[in-house]
């Protein structure tokens, strides 16, 4: 999954009524796209 794929998935989750997203396992802080994905999720209210 690319960062763009994750964002597209987050968008769908938000549209389907998801309330929150959890980034878990391996270790998210070692993932380069983490900051970008957090900001994207917050923008969706997740």
């Amino acid at each position, binding site marked *: 999954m690319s960062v763009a794929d994750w964002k597209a998935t987050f968008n*769908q989750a938000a549209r389907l009524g998801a309330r929150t*997203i*959890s980034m*878990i396992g391996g*270790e*998210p802080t070692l993932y380069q796209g*983490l*900051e970008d994905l*957090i900001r994207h999720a*917050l923008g969706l209210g997740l």
Partner: protein
Amino acid sequence: MEVYSHLAHLPDRLLEVFALPGVRIACSFYSDDESEHRQITGRDTLKSTQENIVRVLDRSIPLRIGMVHILEGQRIEQAKDLLTTMGVTEIGVDRLRLLGRPQRKAPEITELCGACGLRSAAVLPNGEVTPCPLARWMAVGDVRELGLRNALDRMRPAADKIAAALQEIRMCGPHNDGQCYPCEPSCNPGCDPGVDLEEE
């Protein structure tokens, strides 16, 4: 948005992102003892994790700690005391689940908590959708091909199967009411009274 991390490494820049409203942190923690921590995690990171927990708390970022009971005699209580002294207010303890990395035999549905896939789903790094990150063998397909809505529809039977399998176990005990603490010999295999399931 929750980020589940061991907090061994937390660059300033990332701390700033964690401090944004709407972010909460979950942190894994095992012991207050450096050698026990090393034995479990394979890393010499207890001190840095503790320092970063303090940095997170100092920024008033919502934090919960997830402890996993792995070793016999593990210093769980001492670790909880340490965390409480540090100012942590939310500490959960779970047993090791024999799934994923710790798994040494075929995965068993009863190792799951039973709430998988009911109001939650996991998307794995390869795009596969499953009821839970610990239920990888129940993946139903790639979110990029199916779309999330179709993937969730396909996942429904697996989620129902998990719920049914675990319901039977949770309703164990002498009166079949799930009130089996402390655990009794009459309990079914997999009975896990210490695990709290989130209620609606």
